[in-house]
């Protein structure tokens, strides 16, 4: 790769990517796919558990 392109990636792109990842981590947002999957599964579990409990106590 051209030295100029490498320099551009090292000086501009990498710090941006690291900053984005750190910002997501600081906000408690998933970064990896495993974290995303875990967050999704937990969210689905919460919706179903809370919803079914509420429906059981508020029958039609």
């Amino acid at each position: 790769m051209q030295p100029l392109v490498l320099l551009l990636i090292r000086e501009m792109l990498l710090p941006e990517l690291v900053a984005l990842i750190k910002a997501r981590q600081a906000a408690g947002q998933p970064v990896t796919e495993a974290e995303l999957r875990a967050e999704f599964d937990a969210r689905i579990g919460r919706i179903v558990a809370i919803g079914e409990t509420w429906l059981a106590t508020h029958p039609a």
Partner: protein
Amino acid sequence: MRHALLPLVLVAVVVTGCRPPITITTPQGKVIYAANEVATRVERLQAAAIAGEAEGTLPTDVARVFVQFSVSAAKTLQALPAGWGTSVAVAWGEAKRQIPLKYLNSPTVATAVMAVDTVLAIWLPVSTGGA
């Protein structure tokens, strides 16, 4: 000035909201990202409906429709993370038809309802293979 900037802000929100983070690169990861985006809004809708019913601003029968939709949508998202689109969209349309407009537009749930409408508009084409 504010009115002129609003469309630009909306476009920026939609454009950035339509893309998974750069760390999510595989097709499976993007599928889960889309499903999680929808589930996030569905969870907020359910919470708003339950809170509204508890506060007395939403009738129990109306809250029940929102909660039944939320549980059903969550189960569909989990079972079909890559193909939830049509099922969830049809269920959402049916749920909204059962709810009088004054409750759909009530401050208790209006924002959450709009958020579900928006997230479905963004991610439905992805889920149904249209984009």
